[in-house]
């Protein structure tokens, strides 16, 4: 397929059709009036498997090669890619343009939350293109342990107020947390002892846990 000159809408449609032809793509949409052309891809299982096994850079290189082989850019330029899976429904109209225009997210999506007898659970979804996967690691995207601690403090603060972490112990990392995972982050605050315990689970399997020694502070505070 050759990407031809034409109206912006036609170019977007051509681009989306071009990318839908890729065997790792379930759905594709394009937006933007000037370079870079912004393209959102909904990966299928094969695409997600490639992302997990080889990393974002390799995946995008394959998409770049696919584009290069299937026609020149009308702008003669490159694409800014966004990656999604089936947990993120394809938005329509202005919502699509807004989503595609956003840079890759820096935080997990909050799907829901509920109290438990011992604490509070946040149900989180890790976007496929979470920004931290840019560098950790380039060829094997994994959430660094330090970010699991940061999320425990950040989401714990939503429930219990801002707090600073002085030390941490009983820290265990048992299973990798990767793009697309749905997490149950449970935090339990013991104000009297100055402790914030957290666990991260995927489908009931424990991924990580730690005990953070915290003190309340004013304002946002993620330092440890």
């Amino acid at each position, binding site marked *: 397929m050759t990407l031809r000159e034409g109206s912006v809408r036609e170019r977007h449609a051509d681009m989306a059709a071009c990318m839908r032809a890729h065997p790792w793509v379930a759905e594709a949409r394009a937006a933007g009036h000037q370079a870079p052309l912004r393209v959102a891809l909904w990966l299928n299982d094969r695409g997600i498997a490639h992302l997990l096994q080889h990393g974002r850079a390799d995946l*995008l290189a394959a998409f770049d090669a696919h584009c290069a082989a299937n026609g020149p850019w009308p702008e003669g330029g490159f694409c800014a890619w966004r990656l999604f899976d089936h947990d993120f429904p394809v938005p329509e109209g202005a919502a699509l343009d807004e989503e595609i225009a956003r840079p890759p997210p820096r935080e997990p999506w909050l799907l829901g939350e509920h109290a438990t007898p011992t604490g509070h659970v946040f149900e989180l979804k890790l976007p496929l293109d979470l920004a*931290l996967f*840019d560098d950790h690691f380039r060829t094997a995207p994994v959430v660094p342990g330090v970010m699991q601690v940061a999320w425990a403090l950040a989401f714990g603060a939503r429930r219990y107020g801002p707090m600073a972490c002085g030390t941490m112990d009983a820290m265990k990392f048992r299973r990798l947390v990767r793009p697309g995972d749905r997490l149950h982050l449970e935090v339990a605050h013991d104000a009297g002892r100055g402790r914030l315990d957290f666990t991260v689970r995927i489908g009931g399997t424990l991924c990580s846990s730690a005990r953070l020694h915290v003190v309340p502070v004013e304002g946002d505070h*993620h330092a440890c």
Partner: protein
Amino acid sequence: MRADGVLRIEIPVEVPFFDVDSMDVVWHGHYVKYLELARCTLLERIGHDYHQMKASGYLWPIVDLQLRYVRAARFGQRLIVRADLVEWRNRLKVHYRVLDAETGERITLASTVQVAVAASSGELQLESPSVFLEAVERALAAAHGNEGTPA
């Protein structure tokens, strides 16, 4: 195996007399200075040099340093010190190669890890400060032309 980074700089270094020990080779501790020179250039390329770093309110102490000595460098030898930006979102990790400028032979391999610390309180930052992330994204956009998202 030390991975290539998303940003790379190279600087020339000619081994000075005062870096050579009584065995006529560069004393092992002096290589750290060469890494520092390369890292300064890399930070300038990022647009977040040590002056800007200090002004931002965050310090970046070295918390890990690894060196592997492959061959000895000698007085007057012309070297290339290469620095690659490998990680930046939660820590600053840089990979280095010290090469002979003429032959390209590996002299030394190294890596450093730095973490951000609030200058006012000394508190470790679990995520790199936004001022640094934005500088890296601008540098990546300039280098790769894709809005800071390394391909």
